[in-house]
């Protein structure tokens, strides 16, 4: 059986599991939207005067998407821990399916879940008046970028889950996102940051994902920003996939 086919079947299984636990997904939509409303309500009126951002709803929309992405992708690690605790992960390891598929199936399911969630948050943002300068095609790319980021990011929770088999540790995959988010231009452009924060934001891959998505909402097609976003995601993905595969090896040591 090819890795691709096995990954597909495992992805479908993971998506079915999500569909049967809608409460988990709802919180990943509700929390980012709550922060979107509150942040726009608190800062939206002064963002133009304070740091030159007139469309603060559009400025914040990618932040809500990435928050939801981190929450959703973090659940991938949680699902794997549950499989490990129930012994079902061993059952999957006992099949002749390539072991890479056990990882890719879960990651692909996370990417699909992130894209569904992103579409919902984006539609709410559009109803709020965030706009989408890059049009319908831009909206599709916006969601795809979120999905790719989810794919790369969920590797953090998955690798922790495989290495530790612990629910608490796997949830740390979500917590990693907070420093990454706050050390990025999430609430104001990088140009108004203190020097030390600007340096950290420049090193932070989330910065480029945010700026790439933001460009689609606020400016239209800016290929350089999209390219930086995709390179950042590819770099993050390479690191997290390597971590995940190394963790998978430890389960048969």
């Amino acid at each position: 059986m090819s890795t691709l086919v096995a990954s597909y079947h495992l992805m479908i299984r993971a998506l079915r599991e999500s569909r049967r636990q809608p409460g988990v997904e709802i919180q990943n939509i509700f929390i980012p939207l709550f922060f979107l409303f509150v942040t726009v309500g608190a800062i939206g009126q002064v963002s133009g005067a304070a740091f030159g951002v007139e469309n603060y709803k559009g400025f914040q929309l990618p932040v809500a998407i990435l928050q939801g992405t981190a929450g959703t992708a973090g659940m991938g690690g949680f699902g794997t821990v549950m499989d490990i605790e129930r012994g079902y992960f061993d059952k999957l390891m006992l099949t002749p399916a390539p072991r890479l598929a056990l990882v890719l199936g879960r990651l692909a399911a996370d990417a699909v879940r992130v894209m569904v969630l992103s579409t919902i948050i984006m539609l709410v943002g559009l109803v709020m008046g965030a706009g989408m300068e890059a049009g319908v095609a831009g909206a599709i790319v916006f969601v795809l970028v979120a999905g790719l980021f989810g794919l790369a990011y969920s590797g953090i929770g998955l690798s922790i889950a495989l290495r530790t088999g612990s629910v608490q540790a796997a949830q740390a995959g979500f917590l990693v996102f907070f420093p990454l988010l706050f050390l990025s231009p999430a609430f104001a452009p990088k140009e108004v940051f203190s020097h030390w924060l600007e340096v950290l934001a420049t090193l932070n891959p989330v910065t480029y994902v945010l700026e790439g998505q933001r460009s689609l909402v606020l400016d239209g097609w800016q290929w350089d920003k999209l390219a930086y976003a995709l390179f950042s995601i590819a770099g993050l993905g390479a690191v997290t996939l390597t971590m995940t595969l190394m963790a998978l090896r430890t389960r048969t040591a």
Partner: protein
Amino acid sequence: MPAILTEQLTKHFPPDIKAVDGIDLSIAEGKIFAFLGQNGSGKTTTVRMLTTLLRPTSGRAQVDGLDVLARAAEVRRRIGVALQEAALDDMQTGRELLVLQARLYGVPTSEINERVGGLLKIVELDDAADRLVKTYSGGMKRRLDLAAALVHNPKIIFLDEPTTGLDPIGRDAIWRYVEALNRDGGVTFFLTTQYLEEADRLAHEVAIVDRGRIVAAGSPDDLKASIGTDVVTVRVPGDDDNAARAAEVLGRVDGASDVRALEDSVVVYIKDGSTAIPAIVLRLSEASIPMREVTLSRPTLDDVFLRMTGHHIEADRSVTRPEPQRSE
């Protein structure tokens, strides 16, 4: 060619735990083999090495003629495994779980529905097939787990304590499936158990494992015959070193080949036990050692276990209670 072969199979865990310590096995095709030992004796670790879930520290293992390290993927294709405590996904239905299992084993799509339907019928879960696994009772989960191990028609099946936690009815159902598959399909079984009656009823060959080592092996009848004597058990009050004192006294009874002192009893291995009992009672009375009960029996696997390890097997007898809303 043996279905399963190991040579000095060893697994050590840091810092210095010898979970499996140089096990040699040769199990012929079509046999039911029972690996008998109590918790922590190395049974599960051995199964995990033979099924490619764990790398041996040293030694060699072959399953169906294939090295478990060098040809792990091929080994996995030829074996079915039901691990200790049904390892299932609670959020799938029984049918979905079996279909996924069939797909991952590469069963042709055109055959999957028929095969899964047939298996569900065999394990008597066809009525519950479309319910989520989380609504199943312990016995139903075990049967589903067994069906999952069979979905690709494996030649060799590993069952790790398949009936632990089941009530007598659930246990009997699993035993019947194992016997039928072995008898009708020629499937080789490697099962681990801490239940003497399970090994006695099912197994053609038994290996008794204690602290990671095989201490006795053979057919149940051969093992019992190896004792070569009757077994007289004398229960004594479990205080004042009664058992130790009794063992010392009874070691001098004519014909006693071995005497084992336990907490509140003494086991005497003796030829022609029925005629030896008066002498045993007399000796204990002379030594003023109180007795509560004297029993005579033919040797059981427990006696073999006791003789080889110095202690009785302590099986986990707890039964998983079905939750109220669940039904079989």
